[in-house]
């Protein structure tokens, strides 16, 4: 039966003993979509893919591929999909040609069909030079290409690719993404990866899973907008002033600004939610500001810079990146791995609510939009923060106990930023 829904998961759950790997995961992938399946390690991406490819069974829920239930007719499901597991496990002792012929035989293709398909596969995957080589002699990038080739040998309508770019160098990653873009023109593709740039390059839609739950599902633009904030990058010269400014000519400002001065002034602008200093060289102060999604702070920033007589080197406004949203949505996983308190309690409502619950979680988590490095630095910089606060004039009321301060309020984030600034 022809259907537009090519992959459908409904309330998928999977238990490994007491460990809940998947918790009521539901999503759909429609015909012709290339969907990024995102999540940190252990979030349940591979488990979901293994259920969809009938390698393992779900503990609860149902899944259909091309309208066929994975439990009722696994062979038919496998005929409809091309699957590339993580790290492209292939038989190293076989040549590329023999391996692809083996998969073709397993799929019941006749030799003439196989040969005609091979022309296209060799062209799309770039395998012409290695067809006669043993797979064990190939680089990781070529193995991934062979893996993609075997997934395409029967010209499936659906492709499921589990981290096809893991362990590849940047050039190889770019190549594999190019293949996926090429392949995805006329197929449904579910692409699992950690690499958000790849998703942005190859997919129009993403599903983000965390701790076995879907926390976001939708077009990339919608997911980016979930944070409700816009980011501004402002860079001010650290050693020079704008000599043509009125303030300079009047002699009221003859000293280049300190980072604290810039930070305080930017932070005082109406609409600025948070200010964070970014690492730079010795010649500039770079700051990242967060503002509300609907507003535009550039005018106010420019006026401030002119009024102060500072020398503006760069100002840029950009939406929250997918990476920022991803980190905000999945940070709890990483913190749990490190034995830290979670950002938010994992109530059952969040599990059931899927994407909606994810958005709610995001709303609380996105406020503390530090990057991961900063996040990791929090603990290490505890004492440094205290010292920094004192040096900043004692306006920091943080008690320095960041182990318990992970609820992400803006003040703490500011304190961290100040700590960093003074540490420079």
């Amino acid at each position, binding site marked *: 039966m022809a259907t537009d829904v090519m992959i459908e998961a409904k309330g998928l759950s999977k238990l490994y003993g007491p460990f809940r790997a998947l918790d009521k995961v539901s999503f759909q992938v429609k015909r012709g979509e290339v969907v990024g399946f995102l999540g940190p390690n252990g979030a349940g991406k591979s488990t979901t893919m293994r259920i969809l490819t009938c390698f393992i069974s779900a503990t609860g829920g149902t899944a259909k591929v091309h309208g066929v239930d994975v439990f009722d007719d696994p062979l038919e499901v496998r005929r409809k999909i091309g*699957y590339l597991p993580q790290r492209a*496990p292939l038989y190293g002792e076989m040549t590329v040609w023999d391996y692809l012929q083996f998969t073709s035989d397993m799929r019941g293709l006749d030799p003439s069909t196989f040969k005609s398909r091979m022309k296209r596969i060799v062209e799309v995957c770039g395998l012409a030079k290695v067809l006669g080589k043993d797979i064990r002699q190939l680089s990781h990038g070529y193995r991934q290409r062979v893996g993609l080739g075997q997934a395409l040998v029967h010209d499936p309508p659906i492709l499921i690719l589990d981290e096809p770019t893991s362990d590849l160098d940047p050039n190889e990653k770019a190549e594999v993404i190019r293949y996926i873009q090429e392949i995805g023109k006329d197929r449904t593709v579910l692409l699992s990866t950690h690499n958000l740039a790849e998703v942005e390059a190859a997919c129009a839609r993403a599903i983000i899973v965390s701790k076995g739950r879907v926390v976001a599902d939708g077009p990339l633009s919608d997911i980016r907008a979930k944070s409700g904030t816009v980011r501004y990058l402002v860079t001010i010269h650290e050693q020079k002033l704008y000599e043509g400014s009125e303030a300079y000519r009047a002699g009221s400002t003859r000293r280049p600004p300190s980072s604290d001065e810039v930070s305080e002034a930017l932070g005082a602008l109406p609409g600025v939610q948070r200010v964070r200093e970014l690492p730079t060289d010795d010649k500039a102060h770079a700051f990242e500001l967060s503002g509300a999604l609907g507003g535009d702070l550039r005018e106010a920033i420019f006026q401030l810079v002119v009024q102060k007589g500072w020398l503006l080197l760069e100002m840029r406004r950009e939406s929250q990146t997918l990476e920022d949203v991803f980190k905000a949505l999945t940070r709890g996983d990483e913190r749990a791995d490190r034995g830290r308190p979670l950002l938010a309690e994992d109530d059952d409502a969040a599990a059931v609510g899927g994407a909606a619950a994810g958005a709610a979680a995001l709303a609380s988590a996105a406020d503390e939009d530090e990057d991961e490095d900063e996040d990791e630095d929090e603990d290490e910089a505890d004492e440094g923060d205290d010292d920094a606060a004192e040096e900043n004039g004692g306006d920091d009321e943080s008690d320095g106990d960041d182990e318990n301060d992970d609820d992400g309020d803006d003040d703490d984030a500011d304190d961290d930023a100040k700590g960093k600034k003074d540490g420079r």
Partner: protein
Amino acid sequence: MSATLTIAKRELRANFDSPVAYVVICLSLIALGFTFFYYEGGFWQANRASFEMLFVYLPRGLSWVVIPVLTMRLIAEERRAGTLEMLITLPVKDHQVVLGKFLGTWAVVLGLIASTLLFPVLMFKFWHLGTLDWGPIFAGYIGLVFYSAAAVSLGLLVSSLTESQIIAFFVTWLLLLALHISGMFMNRVDDPSLQQILAFISFDARLVSFSRGLVTTRDLLYFASIAAMSLMASFRALERRKWS
């Protein structure tokens, strides 16, 4: 070609694509030659045209070296390397995977067994060393065919229960060793029921019957049952991944 035969063909080729099969077969034939002709006087001192000892030494060599080496990687290595996931997510049923792997490996062992036919053929057909009673020879080879099916399937079962080839090798080796030598302990135990059990499970005791020209349904069924049960257990072990 069915998926089972495709897998069997790949297994057969995998053995001969690496030097393992060649080394194992050559060394086995050399070792068998020395043992058959020189061990404890060997064939010459027996002073009669009998190949009974061939059917004693050959299965021991197969069980203690060849079969553990060939079967240890069958599923254990695929599971460790992740190729099992690639294989099983092709349109193939689990029992076809098990059967294909069994047939591919059994074919290698049968090839090795068949190559030992050179001994009687060369000695009594080409070099005319005397008159040979071919009945026990054929019976012995029938026994070897059934025995090898049982031994290979036991190795496959062990391989399906672990991810470590080393563990698979030693467990298979120990299992087959026990099944071969259990008959030796028959006279050392007093319990008659235990004696019966030891005699029943002994590979050697059953293979001796074949080598003397006695082909019994009981012995054939014994080996066939071990093979069938081991293959079914391997299938279950492979299927276990779905629910673990």
